[in-house]
Every structure is written in C-alpha cells, then in structure tokens.
C-alpha cells in the first residue's frame, strides 16, 4: 500500500512538470497548382487593388468576421519577394501568402498562424476570373464591395488544407490623415512567441513587414570593443541565445568573441547595428526605426550610424526616420551632452517637458498610463508625435486604436495592431 501510494505521488508529481511548446512552420511549397511553371507574378496594380478589408465567411469562428489584407515585400540578393498578409481579429491570427496568376485566376499560397497558441497550418486561396481576378488583373483595377472573393481552404499543420475559408472584399483599408506607425518590438516580435526567427536579428527585420509592421524598435548595446549591436537583455542568457558556456554581461565580450562563440536562438549571429540598418534601408519597406538605448555611455557611435543611414535611405529614395530612444534620465543626460542633440532625431520616454528640452520628435509613454489623450493633444500642439509602448493585450490594442490619438503603437504583435488600425472606421 505504502509503495503504491509513493509511486502514485511521485508519478503524478513528475507528470506535472513543464510542458514544451513549439511551433513547426508548415512547408508551403507543396501546392502543385501554385508550382505550375505557367504561373506568373502578379502586376503591382493588382496587388495594390487587392488590399482592403474583407469579410470572412465559413471560418469566422476560427478567425473572426473581418480580415485586413495587405501586401509587403522583401529584397534578397537583388530579388524582390512579395507577400500578402491577412490580419484577423481572433486570437491574433494571420495568414502570409505569396501570390501568382494562372489561367486568369489568382492563387495565394502560404500559411496561417495564431499568435496566442501554437496553432498553424497551410492556406490555399483562389480568386477565380469571375470572382474578381479579371478585374484585378486589368490595367486599372478599381475594386468595391463584393467585387473580389477569395475562396479556398486552410488546414492544420502540414495536412492538406480542406476546411473552407472565404474572404469577400468589403472596403478600403483605413488610413488616418497623418501617417500611423505599426512598430514591431525587438525588430518584429519576441522569440518567446515562437516565431521562426530570433528577436533582434537581421532575419526578423526581413520578416517583420509580413506581420504588418511599418517600423521597428531594436535594442542597442555596445560590445567590449565598442561595436553597437542588437541585443535586449543585460546578460547572455538562454532566452536569447543557444547554450555556449558564456555567461554574464554582453559588454564583457568583444564583437569578435560574440561572433565566433554566440548564436541567437534560431542560429543567427548577433547583428551589428550597421548590419541591421543596412537590411532596413536596402531590403525592406520599413519607414521607421527606434534605436532603444540599452547601454549607458556615449551616444556618438550610434548617432554617426543614424546619420549615415538616414542619408543612405534618402539617396536610395527611401522615406526612413531613425530615432534614438531616451528611456531614462541617464541616457537623456548623455544625449543632451551631444553638441548637436537638438537636430538629432530622438524619441523621449520621459515627461513632456523633457521632450521639449531634448527637442525629441516623438514622446513615447508606457501603455500602463492609459491613452492620455490630453497629453497627446499637447504633444501634437508642439508639432511632435506620440507613440505608446508596448501594447500586447489584444483588447488594449483595440482600445488604444479606437479611443487613443497616438501616432504609433509599439507591440510584439504588429499583426494585431495592423488588424485594428486597418479595419478601424
């Protein structure tokens, strides 16, 4: 009896141990129709016309009643790849597909994911010629309610998509009179949200537009030899890197040592700020970079890179704002010691008075203080912008978009901000 009880207690206790969660991204390269050699790229006008708010039928319980459909691109080795993303209102769900035309129809092939869970699977959608493809593929497509219908299926994991999904065009995407930034935290999202690439990596920067981001926040630190790199935490730890035997503050190591011995969770090297900004300027459509200051020390090396890459963006015909974040008094004081601080674009997380003192372009309070509409109005009256950080609870994102007057929202779930912003009326 005693033995039985002991075994029972022990086994139940052991079974209570930590569960491992992971997301295995499905391989979208298995749809034969999409892989047909006759399938061709979509014209730019088609992609633009296709963007909009769609009503969801068949799968509204799974994904919600509306979807915001938006295109993005990424450039790799000179080749541009376009993705169409659908952002849903339930469980921070989205799909990310590539598009082609074949025999007068438009095919969308990719995967869906719910960010609140590990659920994912394949998506195959088709816009038949009679369901709007003819219109979309015409020379000057003008789409209105009900004129485009995407029909198809979604599935679980790598299984063939068999569950019906229909999206019908309802209206244009919301765009506020002044530009609104959907800023992604840590270059696109946290590693803990089981994304396929690591936070604060070049790979994440190249991916984040697919999640709806128009801008990013990255965390900047210096190595022992003064190289600005992207890394969030104070120390090397297994939340961010693979086990290497190296521990302690990242500032204890030179860039050379980190480059040889340390890999991020998904195997990437810790990027230098230069590598990150190069990717932003030359490979993405991102229009905003927030350099969050995680170091205590001179701002000058970061300021030099900021200047260099804003000029490079301008020369490349890209609209890009790069701002230096001032999260606390120590970084604020260091910033004000720059002779040209007033003309250096910055984002201040402190008081409105400090925004004025530093001539920051943006005031960025923590979301935990609420919408602060009166304070935001004061900032706007000063000719400046206001962003709020880091809003992750979907219900709060909805409230900030609908009731707040911020010019940008920083979130680990840019797809949720994108959904709420684009469907807002």
């Amino acid at each position: 009896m005693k033995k039985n009880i002991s075994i029972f207690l022990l086994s139940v206790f052991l079974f209570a141990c930590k569960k491992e969660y992971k997301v295995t991204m499905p391989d979208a390269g298995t749809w034969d129709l999409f892989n047909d050699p006759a399938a061709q790229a979509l014209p730019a006008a088609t992609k633009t016309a296709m963007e909009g708010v769609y009503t969801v039928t068949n799968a509204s319980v799974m994904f919600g009643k509306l979807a915001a459909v938006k295109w993005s691109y990424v450039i790799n080795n000179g080749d541009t790849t376009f993705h169409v993303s659908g952002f849903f209102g339930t469980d921070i769900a989205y799909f990310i597909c590539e598009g082609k035309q074949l025999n007068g129809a438009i095919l969308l092939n990719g995967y869906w994911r719910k960010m609140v869970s590990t659920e994912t699977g394949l998506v195959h959608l088709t816009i038949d010629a009679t369901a709007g493809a003819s219109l979309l593929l015409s020379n000057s497509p003008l789409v209105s309610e009900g004129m485009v219908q995407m029909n198809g299926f979604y599935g679980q994991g790598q299984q063939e998509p068999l569950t019906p999904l229909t999206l019908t065009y309802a209206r244009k995407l919301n765009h506020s009179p002044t530009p609104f930034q959907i800023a992604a935290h840590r270059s696109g999202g946290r590693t803990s949200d089981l994304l396929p690439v690591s936070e604060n990596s070049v790979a994440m920067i190249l991916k984040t537009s697919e999640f709806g981001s128009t801008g990013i926040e990255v965390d900047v630190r210096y190595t022992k030899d003064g190289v600005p790199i992207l890394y969030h935490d104070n120390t090397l730890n297994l939340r961010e890197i693979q086990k290497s035997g190296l521990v302690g503050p990242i500032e204890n190591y030179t860039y050379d040592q980190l480059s040889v011995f340390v890999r991020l969770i998904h195997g990437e090297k810790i990027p230098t700020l230069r590598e990150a900004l190069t990717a932003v300027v030359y490979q993405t459509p991102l229009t905003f970079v927030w350099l969050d200051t995680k170091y205590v020390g001179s701002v000058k090396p970061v300021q030099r890179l900021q200047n260099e890459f804003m000029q490079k963006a301008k020369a490349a015909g890209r609209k890009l704002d790069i701002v230096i974040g001032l999260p606390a008094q120590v970084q604020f004081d260091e910033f004000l010691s720059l002779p040209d601080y007033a003309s250096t674009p910055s984002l201040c997380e402190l008081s409105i008075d400090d925004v004025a003192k530093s001539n920051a372009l943006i005031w960025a309070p923590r979301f935990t203080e609420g919408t602060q509409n009166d304070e935001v109005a004061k900032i706007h009256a000063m000719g400046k912008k206001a962003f709020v950080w880091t809003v992750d609870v979907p219900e709060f994102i909805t409230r900030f978009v609908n009731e707040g007057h911020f010019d940008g929202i920083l979130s680990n779930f840019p797809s949720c901000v994108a959904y709420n912003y684009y469907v807002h009326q």
Partner: protein
Amino acid sequence: MLFQALIAQDTTFHSKHAAIYFPYPMYKEHWRSSIGFTLMTTPEDITEEVRLRIPCGDYHLLTKINNHFILDSRLLFQVLQNHVSTGLHYVRPINENVYISAGNDIGFWFGYLKLSGFDSKALGWIDYPNLSIGYKTKKDLLITFKAQVSFNLYYQAANGAVKYSSSKRYYNGETFTLALEQPFYNKKHLTLAFSAISNKFYWQTWALFYKTNREIYYPQITVGFIL
C-alpha cells in the same frame, strides 16, 4: 468505529499545531494556523530577466465546522498584490495512516502599481476545486499530496483611463503540491511544500503579462511555521 477510534487517538497524535496541508479532521480543536512564505520562479521566455518573484507572505487558517468539515482560509500577501481564498473542505480518514479531503476554494486577488510609468490596477476571482491525500508515517512525518485545478471567473484591469474586464470563465490550469509536515525546533512544526503550478494566468504575474493560451509552469516552494 474507525472514526471513534481515531477521535480517541486524537489526544496522542500531534494534530493540533501540526498539520495544515495534511487532511486531518479537527475532532477536538477549533482552529489551526501557520505563517510563512512562498517563493516561486517565473518563466524566462515570458518574464525575461525577472526570474525570481519577491517572497510572498502566507497566512493559513483552518477553522473547524464539524468532525468532517473544515473551513480552509489563506491570505497570500505582497502588499502591492494580494490573494485571499476560502473554502469548505470535507476530510475523512481512510484508515489509521491515510486521510483524504475534497474541497472547493474561492479566491480573490488584487494588485495595484502606481509609480513612474505605471498607473495600473487589476483584480480577479478564481475558483479552486481540490483533492488531498495524506499519509501519516510511523514516525512524526506527515506527507500530503494535493491536486488542485483552477477556473478563472473574472478579470478586470485598468491602465490609466483604459479599462478592461472579462467575465469569460475558462479552465486556467492545475497545481500539484507535495507537502511535508513535521516537528522542526522544540515543539514547533514546519511545513515544507513543493508545488508545480501550470497556469494560463497566475495572479502574481498580472503586472508582467496577462494570460497566454498555453499553460506556463511555475515551480513554487512554501515554508510555513505552524503556530
């Protein structure tokens, strides 16, 4: 017969001042209590560099209703966030060494944080059905295994003027506890409990993050001095 025999034994067994987790009926006493603390770690992937919560004060009070029913009340306090629960537990011996209990506790938690950058407060109601089985060794050691599940009943949070509440009820997760109770110093008894908490939402983390759709694992140690 068994109950009568055990009631008679109660004068010799150190039940009074000796068992908080152990499901021992309160035949001849009216209350038992303990004071101590709980200590838990948080998941690195979610709470990042905040790995260790500050110890949480723990006051546990058992009140006799009758020979088989006990009112189990508990206050967990960290000043800025606190949790109080109470519930009726049915306790009964199976034999001289094995005791069981079944109960249901209702918990209420609340927290507030008003300092630089924060203007947040939150509260919630949680239901905790639970079962315990205790084994009394021949020595003076009491071993208790407690299995508890929880259901979130209500959640309310406010950040500045932005308020959010949800009365959506959902299964929150389960907690398994192994508790050892025995004499430690002089005639004072001590509770050492090890808990494996797997919850979608855990009240001590309300200021760090809301719930996830997956259960997060929190190991917890409880040390209690039985008064």
